[in-house]
């Protein structure tokens, strides 16, 4: 039986960088508990000696020649940013 506490919700919200109201926390506590209760059925599946599958295709380390390829221009990409200065993205101060 999964038990998600309000502190658990605040912790994952901090990790995911999402601000939550107290109301959000209470609601997500209930929703995540119910969902994880359902997920807990997997505990009953025997997986000893079973390898995990992260990916279904037998492709590993796809390489190409080390030659410069055309890419998106940084000045064009910077125009997508909500705040910018020239070809740079502007953000609030990082250090206090």
């Amino acid at each position, binding site marked *: 039986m999964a038990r*998600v506490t309000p502190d*658990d*919700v605040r*912790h*994952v*919200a901090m*990790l*995911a*960088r*999402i*601000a*939550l109201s107290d109301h*959000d926390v209470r609601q*997500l506590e209930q*929703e*995540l508990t*119910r*969902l*994880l209760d*359902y*997920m807990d*059925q*997997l*505990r009953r*599946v025997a*997986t000893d000696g*079973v*390898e*995990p*599958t*992260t*990916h*279904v*295709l037998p*492709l590993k380390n*796809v390489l*190409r020649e080390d030659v410069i390829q055309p890419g*998106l221009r940084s000045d*064009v*990409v910077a125009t*997508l*940013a*909500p*705040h910018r200065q020239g070809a740079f*993205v502007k*953000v*609030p*101060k*990082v250090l*206090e």
Partner: protein
Amino acid sequence: MNEWLTLTAQALAEQLRRGELQPSDVLRALAARIADINPLVHAYIEADLESALTRAAVLERGPRRGKLYGVPIGVKDNICVAGRETACASRILAGFRAPYAATVIQRLEAEGAVMFGRLNMDEFAFGSSTETSAYGITKNPWDLDRIPGGSSGGSAAAVAADCAFACLGSDTGGSIRQPAALCGVVGLKPTYGRVSRYGLIAFASSLDQIGPLTKDVTDAALLLEVIAGHDPADSTSAPLEVPSYTQHLTASVEGLRIGIPQEYLGAGLDPEVKAALAAAGQQLEQLGMRCEPVTMPHTPSAIATYYLIATAEASSNLARYDGVQYGLRVTDGTGTTLRAMYEQTRAQGLGAEAKRRILLGTYALSRGYYEAYYLKALKVRTLIKQDFDRAFERYDCLLTPTSPTPAFRIGERIHDPLSMYLSDICTISANLAGVPALSLPCGLTRDGLPLGMQLLGRPFEEARLLQIAYAYEQATAWHTKHPEAVAHA
């Protein structure tokens, strides 16, 4: 309604190539149809006629060639079309204009297609009903009080309502097939790696595939053969030749062995869906195939497995929406720190279901829970894939319902996330195993709602699925039915 609007993409392309119609005339007629119907169905977020006409004018000055010469194609709002807004139906990406075109778009345009319209979807493809879109709900053309399915609900509804000749969707857990079934059109999720994901805004990178939603099986074959194939820009695209799916549609299906997984027929299956599937099995037998029951014992674990893996991958993929590089940025005046900007931007830019999935995925990946949830799910994924490997040793194809029920009512499940997740029971295993799967119409309920059957095949055997589906379609008339609710708007 203009008579050409009911044509398939292939039939339209033939008329356009012969010069009997002009691409710009088709676009104007389609735009008029959308203007009539979209206020009822809301399949399109936007349909910019001017940019499409500019493209049509270029085509009209050149030679009339290409498999999709002059054919308008609708695009789900998570596939990048250069210079066009692409927002995944989310506030957090509002205003984002894609600086490049997805590989599938480049390939369609190289065959003469005209991209026309942004199709509505669940926000970031998180949903099975198109109710989580930040741009409003799409309605099912067969019953405007019901959902069209999701997440490619706009694409499916547009094709069903003759507001599009064909559309692209994306399928992470059934997002092409389930809306195709609920709207009475054909939807194909290719094998993982068959179609490049370059320019598809990522939800769950080990599960996502782009595919077509079309009026018939021939169009699904046509669009797949145009968009499929290796792409150096997507390292997970398979370096394999692409067969000519349209040329092999009529291959014999006699003697093929069809497995019917019994786990898909259990509790929760609507009786009318069950009856339609039994009739579909009989039809395949009349066409010379042999249907037998098969067991796939790990099927009941698929939803829990899927929602752990998909949300874990989504929590990582959506970390990039932080107000820095594109889309929405929320700051509360001066003195805001970078951290506060991230948290406020995501709090205000993401909808409730997106937050729920990001937090569930973050939880499953976090210290102390990684092994119990995420790693466990990856191991069960192996067992689910092995079920398919074993079934395909004996059977050429598997037959299941696409959805356990016909379209449900708007609002019926949106406040109960688990009940919404459970509606994906028939479609998610194909994504976990990476196998191709196709949904096609196989009946109508007493209330006149469409039902779909799903064919699942061995990896990279889309050609066989299409052959079986084509044979079934030739023998039945379900694909010719049209929704009355939007017939004469």
